[in-house]
């Protein structure tokens, strides 16, 4: 073998930081090749994809709006993934949060109180947590793998949402369109500036990021979560209760995903529609890992992911590139990150073709 991998004695801190940069570079490189192959000028396409969407304040605001649900989901997933609980169900938890919040909001159309919005938001959070609690219960009582149960619950959530939006929650005055009535202003997240759509969900993200950071990096509960993830036998010997931690991690990640859903319907959308989420819950998985399960890293990764969403839409409109481009970029990014992460624990060496210099005499018989 020309190249060999040699385990490092310690994690390389340099590569911990370099790996995402290298992955981004490789993604751009492959993207450039792809655009060239499709007959587009790579540089111009990148401009459309990555720069045009955020050239003005309106664009930045749209970027933040896009990032809010992704970040809320990803922050919750970071808690679960630190414990090695593979919650793939942020999408479903988000949809249920949106559904439950909407169900309350359209019953409060005439209630003009400051309590309306908190009640709607709280309902969304609890519903998301409840949806995750199903997976927690299945895992702690029947040892059912949470990867499978959360994925399956995603489909149930989506179909529940579709049923309600086509049926009980449909706006009676909405000309049979599958959507709810617009929420009352008392149930809407306020916007932060006059002429852009950025809403108070932005503060919720900051709050969640600080809370998750404190939990994971400073609290003893977060320490137990990390021990459970790294070494469940040690956690058992020390008496850290695995079942409780599973519940906690899933409830937190479900609650934050529910918050993401309800902040979408009470924020930019303002009503319940079938397309609440273009896959935010799945994008959040990539974001959580790109951000190394660390709140600060997640914010950076989430903004990048939101930019890809916006850029993808922009490229679709102006260059007629297909929408699956966004997904392709997401996929490449995760792929290259995982590949580059190998360098954190291993070093690459030129293989044995070049090494035997030190023992070139050993084959000969003694004189």
């Amino acid at each position, binding site marked *: 073998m020309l190249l060999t991998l040699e385990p490092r*004695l*310690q994690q390389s801190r340099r590569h911990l930081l370099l790996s995402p940069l290298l992955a981004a570079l490789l993604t751009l490189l492959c993207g450039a090749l792809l655009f060239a192959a499709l007959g587009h000028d790579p540089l111009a396409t990148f401009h459309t994809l990555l720069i045009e969407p955020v050239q003005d304040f309106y664009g930045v605001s749209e970027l933040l709006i896009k990032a809010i649900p992704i970040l809320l989901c990803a922050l919750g997933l970071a808690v679960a993934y630190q414990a090695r609980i593979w919650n793939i169900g942020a999408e479903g938890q988000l949809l249920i949060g949106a559904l439950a919040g909407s169900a309350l909001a359209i019953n409060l159309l005439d209630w003009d109180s400051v309590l309306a919005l908190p009640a709607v938001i709280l309902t969304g959070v609890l519903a998301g947590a409840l949806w995750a609690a199903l997976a927690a219960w299945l895992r702690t009582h029947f040892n059912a793998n949470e990867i499978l149960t959360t994925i399956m619950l995603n489909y149930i959530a989506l179909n529940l949402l579709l049923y309600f939006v086509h049926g009980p929650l449909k706006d009676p005055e909405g000309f049979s369109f599958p959507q709810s009535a617009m929420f009352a202003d008392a149930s809407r997240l306020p916007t932060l500036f006059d002429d852009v759509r950025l809403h108070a969900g932005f503060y919720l993200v900051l709050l969640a990021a600080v809370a998750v950071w404190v939990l994971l990096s400073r*609290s*003893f509960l977060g320490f137990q979560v990390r021990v459970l993830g790294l*070494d469940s036998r040690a956690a058992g*010997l020390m*008496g850290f209760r695995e079942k409780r931690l599973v519940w906690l991690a899933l409830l937190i990640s479900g609650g934050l995903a529910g918050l993401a859903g309800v902040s979408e319907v009470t924020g930019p959308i303002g009503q319940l529609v079938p397309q609440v989420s273009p896959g935010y819950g799945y994008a959040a998985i990539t974001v959580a890992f790109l951000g190394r399960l660390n709140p600060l890293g997640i914010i950076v990764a989430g903004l990048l992911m939101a930019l890809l969403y916006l850029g993808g839409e922009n490229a679709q409109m102006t260059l007629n590139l297909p929408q699956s481009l966004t997904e392709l970029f997401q996929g490449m990014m995760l792929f290259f990150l995982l590949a580059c992460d190998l360098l954190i624990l291993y070093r690459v060496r030129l293989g044995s073709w070049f090494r035997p210099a030190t023992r070139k005499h*050993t084959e000969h*018989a*003694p004189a």
Partner: protein
Amino acid sequence: MPHSASSLRLELRAITKRYPGTLANDRIDLRISAGEIHALLGENGAGKSTLMKIIYGVTAPDSGEVVWQGQRVQVRDPAQARALGIGMVFQHFSLFETLTVAENIALALGRDAGTPKQLEPKIREVSQRYGMGLEPERLVHSLSIGERQRVEIVRCLMQDIRLLILDEPTSVLTPQEVDELFVTLRALAAEGCSILFISHKLGEVRALCDSATVLRGGRVAGACVPRECSDLQLARLMVGDAEGLEASYPKASGGLTRLRVDDLSWHNLDPFGTSLDRLRLEVRSGEIVGIAGVAGNGQDELLALLSGETRLPRGERERITLDQQPIANLHPDVRRRLGMAFVPAERLGHGAVPDMSLADNALLSSFHQGLVGHGMVRRGRVEALAENIVRRFGVKTPDIHTLARSLSGGNLQKFILGREVMQQPTLLVAAHPTWGVDVGAAATIHRELIALRDAGAAILVISEDLDELFQISDRLGALCSGRLSPLKATAHTTLTEVGRWMAGEFDNPAAA
């Protein structure tokens, strides 16, 4: 030169091997004659394993020469080593439990050697010739550890072997099994097979080996004829000057009963595990109780019940009491808060989280020592504790932010034991406290255990090392097949008696 060139089986000349950060072997010379039993002595981390791997072709040296029967050779892989006539028995066996002895050997030898059925006569013949009773049709999971080791040795002997390397072969055997192994090895040597015997048990080396090479810090510290050296001289060669090497500690008789295990039975659902049968045991304050026994006779199960990883239903909580308080149904963290501490057998992955720093690993079991306030970790206190452990127990590490898995076994063990001792527990349960730990570190650990005892703690030590148990325990017993022998004051028992207990020769105290 005591060796004539013609009878030299293996000669290593200036073998050097560098790993990132360490020089594992530094210009090592070693000579083994035909039919010689040669000991390779050294602490953990002295470079024994690296040297063995070089001889057996697992790793290549950076420089130096390997001369095999007068020919310079380059051993590229274990298959080539076996073709040359070098066999090796590793410390941890690589046998499939659900296959028979013959099937395991056939698998190891490869397709050309024949089917398991065809191999059976030869397996019988080889095992009888060297006095190792072994039935080829038996399933490996039904064999004792000693018998499994025989499978590994017979596997080597099935081929034409001129050098047999044994890595700490006696660490898993009862004294009687050790004697049987030595008979086999002497018979082998008498036929001209050379043996490289790796060990840190000095008594055994003296009883068996013709000559010894002692490694220290990757270099040859000296060569000697073990029969002509005292334990102390050998130990000095291994560790340089270290205090406490030959320490003998006064025995204590203990005070009030701290831990009481009363008629504890536990049924193991794992078909390959051990069930516990009516165990009775008391540990008093100010004494060390030692439990001997070959691994796999119920030690892990007993430890899990004591630590709380395995819990009994509430109705049976009186089976284990601490200071007369029933605890058999309590979780480990609750037991810790009551003053218990545990040192498990496995350091990495059980006693310490490999991918966490030493500081985090200090917090791991000391969370009830004021390191957590209002749910938040008190980072400053955690780091002070970790620094304290490192300093007081002489843990060799760059700093407390180093990952646990990058420490050597002995150093990590000192850290884990230190962490538990610093909690000043009223009851410490320690499993194999010095297993695989070098002589110097073992002496430190023993001193600390004795100091903890003298401060009034009750200590239960479960170990396979009889020398250790006789050195530090005040009372002794042995586990065999999930049953516990009577406990006797160490002064009133003998190695032979404990050896019999380890083989199950005692009346069940519960029946009496």
